[in-house]
């Protein structure tokens, strides 16, 4: 079984590379049962969104 620490690494890696099939399966199985990791998953996605807005400027025409 993956620990939450292992899962957090996969959640991070997933933002940088395509996960392998087994990684995806084990990740999904853990996320179904784990509230904490599901929150972290959403939070990491939010972090990415926050920084994409950092550079994306108010484009002036």
């Amino acid at each position, binding site marked *: 079984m993956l620990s939450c620490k292992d899962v957090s690494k996969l959640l991070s890696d997933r933002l940088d590379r395509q996960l392998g099939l087994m990684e995806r399966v084990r990740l999904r199985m853990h996320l179904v049962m784990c509230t904490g990791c599901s929150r972290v998953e959403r939070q990491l996605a939010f972090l990415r969104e*926050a920084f994409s807005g950092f550079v994306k400027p108010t484009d*002036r025409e």
Partner: protein
Amino acid sequence: LNAKITPSDLAEHRPYLLKYAVLQVGQREVAEDLVQEVMLAAMKGAAGFSGRASVRTWLTAILLNKVADHRRQAGREVSLEAQQEALGADSIEAMFRANGSYASMPQEWRNPEESLTDKRFSDALEACLGRLSELGRQVFLLRELMGLSIEEICKELGLTATNCSVLLHRGRMRLRGCLEDGWFAKRQKQR
């Protein structure tokens, strides 16, 4: 679309570029020199601006090149020791118990999108970034701000791919923890 760069564009983006440069190189004087070079290069190269990217993105790209030049000149290929040091500084051991479960349960962030338009939130975000190691911060910014791939970041900084992804993992986890304590927890209490 008639794309043009004017001196007032440059003045407008200067504070952002400076902030970004300071985060990248860590020293204010060096950062100011680099931004000055960006301004000169931008004036000279204004004709090459296609208008496809935003002005800020275009300027940031020039800055990133200047930062890379600076790093090469300074001979700052990041040594293995320095990589180890950054990994130690950004350790996330304290966030987990020995069995790998969370030492303190991650909380639900309510309506996080609302924060994106809040000026105080970008201050909080920056403060959290400031708590990462310099290398951890650089890797994170190259990835999230500039959208470089892991391979490109490794090449740019001379890191191993493993260290690169470990630094990103630690950086992200530390940032989420820092934002939770320093922003979301306080915000929810106020309601």
